[in-house]
């Protein structure tokens, strides 16, 4: 554990956090497969550190292990927040290796990918215990009322973890971020395109405001 982490988890660090709000937060990027989690993680990391977090692909479950990028400082006017972002594997209730065959993978590769994907889902859920806030990525061209979205939000609410819903893919014609806003009125929803960078300034502003707040985390 580094010196900064030691301070964060020390009594003095927690006391100051309660008084002044959080300045350093570990943010998990969550969502179902293929909604653009890694594209968003890369966008954030590239905008503020010039680096990327991981590779992206049209094949579902491209991210099968959680990947983190530390000490990303985002700013908005006089406000700022230092974040460790954790790009997590997509959460799903089913994985069928046959689905990957449609993307040109041979059976052996498809089976290996499917096995790694199941392990990735477990890892993503475990990470919920170690994040301070969540960017929940949804595809704004798709129906938001999925069980995965409901389950993730239910877990975040039970843990009292702050969440921002990133309504991604607004560059696509069929996108309807308004549907997401009406589906989850109790949470902040920010329409973005991680691919083009559209509206990212609004997301950064919301992240500083929302993830920097004083908040008491509920234990599981």
């Amino acid at each position: 554990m580094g010196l900064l982490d030691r301070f964060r988890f020390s009594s003095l660090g927690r006391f100051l956090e309660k008084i002044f709000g959080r300045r350093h937060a570990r943010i998990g990027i969550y969502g179902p497969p293929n909604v653009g989690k890694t594209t968003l993680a890369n966008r954030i990391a590239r905008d503020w550190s010039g680096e990327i977090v991981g590779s992206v692909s049209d094949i579902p479950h491209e991210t099968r292990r959680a990947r983190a990028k530390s000490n990303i400082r985002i700013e908005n006017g006089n406000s700022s927040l230092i974040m460790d972002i954790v790009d997590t594997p997509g959460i799903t209730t089913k994985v069928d290796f046959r689905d990957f065959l449609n993307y040109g993978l041979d059976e052996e590769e498809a089976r290996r990918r499917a096995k790694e994907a199941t392990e990735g889902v477990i890892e993503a859920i475990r990470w919920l215990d170690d994040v301070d806030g969540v960017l929940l990525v949804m595809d704004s061209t798709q129906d938001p009322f999925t069980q995965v979205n409901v389950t993730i939000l239910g877990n975040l609410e039970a843990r009292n973890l702050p969440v921002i819903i990133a309504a991604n893919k607004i560059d696509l014609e069929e996108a309807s971020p308004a549907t997401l806003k009406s589906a989850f009125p109790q949470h902040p929803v920010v329409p973005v395109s991680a691919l083009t960078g559209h509206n990212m300034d609004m997301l950064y502003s919301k992240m500083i405001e929302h993830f920097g707040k004083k908040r008491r985390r509920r234990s599981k």
Partner: protein
Amino acid sequence: MKVKGVTVDLISRSKLEELTSSEKIDFIIGEVKKGKILILEMGLTADEQADLIKKTMSTIDHDTFIGIEMEGYPEEKVGFFHRLFGIRRSRITVIGPANLLKTIRRDDQVIETIIIPGKGV
């Protein structure tokens, strides 16, 4: 003569309340792996849903069991004391094997699913 078809079990609230969270999850996985569709009168808490997904992922064998389809309504807070103490009541939930049960549409009032023909036991 044995009748062929898909078994749909409606599991009562009292049956579910007898089980611990881990027993509930083992029961659901066991029944769903047999090819049954379960309708739970009292659904799972958010934590239990996450644990069910983890258990499902560790149970998938890619040839005979590819996971579950699960649909239910979010937990609701009911009554003054429930709201005061943050107690939530879980709601009706349908769970089945992913190769057998498919969700067509859901909103905050209706969950529409179909049973895929020819996949029953």
